[in-house]
């Protein structure tokens, strides 16, 4: 299910920590990155790998916003709706981006390239309105910056 590299990452976390449970967060992150979701199959896989019950894995997975139960697009575009970004016109940008990509919040573009999310403050308020493309910070964004980014 996972690449050798990802498996190695999880196993390294597991070897370093006192119990398998501590490696769970790293496992969830790694699986999400590779599989773009942590659905039932992934949950069963992680549970097996770490020797935990699937219920435990699912319970923890559901707590975290970056772990999704259904697949995201190739990339995740997260627009910040935090207060500082709000003060800098984030709502307008979000409306334009929705129109531009033709998706609602939470949706994925028809070509499967981008999932659009609205997120709370990402800790880059000096770039308000800020956004993230996967793990990369961008901003201040306007609809045309996003247009350029999504055409990459």
């Amino acid at each position, binding site marked *: 299910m996972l690449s050798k590299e990802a498996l190695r990452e999880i196993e390294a976390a597991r070897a370093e920590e006192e119990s398998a449970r501590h490696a*769970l967060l790293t496992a969830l992150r790694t699986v999400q990155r590779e599989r773009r979701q942590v659905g039932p199959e992934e949950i069963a896989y992680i549970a097996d790998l770490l020797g935990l019950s699937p219920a435990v894995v699912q319970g*923890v997975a559901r707590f975290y916003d970056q*772990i999704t139960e259904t697949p995201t697009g190739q990339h995740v575009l997260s627009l910040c709706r935090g207060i*500082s970004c709000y003060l*800098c016109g984030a709502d307008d940008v979000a409306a334009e981006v929705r129109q531009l990509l033709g998706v609602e919040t939470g949706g994925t573009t028809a070509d499967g390239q981008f999932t659009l999310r609205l*997120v709370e*403050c990402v800790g880059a*308020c000096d770039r*308000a309105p800020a956004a993230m493309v996967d793990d990369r910070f961008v901003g201040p964004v306007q609809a045309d910056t996003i247009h350029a980014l999504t055409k990459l």
Partner: protein
Amino acid sequence: MAQLLTRNVLDPAQRELQTALRSGAYLGFKQALSLPAHEVVAEIEASGLRGRGGAGFPTGRKWSFIHAALDQPVYLLCNADESEPGTFKDHYLIERDPHLVLEGVAIAAYAIGAHQAYIYMRGEYASIAETLARALGEALDAQIVGPNCMNSGYDLRITIQLGAGAYICGEETGLIQSLEGRRAYPRVRPPFPAVHGFLQEPTVVNNVETLACAARIMAEGAEAFKDLGTKQSAGTKLISVSGAVERPGVYEVEMGHPLMEFLAHEAGGVRRGRGLKGVIPGGTSVPILTAEEAAPLTIDYESMQSAGTMLGSGGMIVFDEDTRMPHALLRIAEFYAHESCGECTPCREGTGWMAWVLRRLLAGEGRPDDLELLLRVGDNIEGRTICGLGDASVQPVRSFIQKFRPEFEALLPKEEQGTLAWQSHGHGPRSGRFGSPAKEAMRSQAVDGPPTAAL
């Protein structure tokens, strides 16, 4: 401008060990290692350093609470979760001077007798974690940290852990839970982490900036640190300023720096020459100040406290005269409703209701007593929750309504009370972390609550 932590941040090469060493990196750690641990704690206590994560708790005192039995493990956790809206100083510091942060971590770990430290970073900081991991790799190779740090006989393992998107992981016991691989439900205190923390062992949780200050204190002495700032607020503070200003960013100021001068000079003034309406001095969890209230204040714990607010995380958010305060407050209230972990009732229910009542007010569907209702819901949260998020959620609601009341009153229905027919939306408050559609199964009946009956 006083420069203690940001001295080297403009040099991109500062991330590399060789450059960092030339600017004095790890001299503080070396100094610490030459002293018995309790003297390091004493030095930090003497410096007057207070926690920069929000609460301002004296750092040396926190370290002195650790009394471990011989061969009992002790843990140091560096809090780099930084999810308080408007706060981005740790982001900047780790990115620009990762070795300073690692040095602080190493000093604190040594002082409390920990051989394992974790740096817990919010998931969104994955790219910054890479910078930090690279710096850690260099420090390990140079045998500065790791086994037998700088030939002192002291062993220290430092591990970087990334979160996965939940504000509550910044709360110290939420952080511990998350690190243990659990849902980040905060723990009831007592017992405090100093007694039963990570894995139930004695644990200290400190903010990134706090630890960076500790590194400077050990390198330059408690006196030098104490010479900066005011009586109750020693040293400097990183201020991340954003919102309606010309030059948003992270600035370091000496404690006691005049607030208005900071806004005018460092922050470049209110954008487009507009008037100042209000400023939140330390992240959304502290009460907002009106322009008038802000005018005489200085940036330090005691001045902020005298005005009924707090320095908090130093996440300063500026509102200009064009801001519609009820709309802005809704945005903040929605944040808390979304981030409430759902563990305790007053916060889980109350944050949802506050957002919901605000939303109906803004939709023109408010009821005559909605402002009182909002304040009452707040009163019923405050002081009745497991962690500080509940109290935090009340501060913006209460202070915005008190200080900008006419704007809220303008949203109330004009009709006479008796003739108003308020329509039910047919759905309760928007639910948070505990009740998004995917988490439906976790949801208790009460969350849905009858929107009319209870109110």
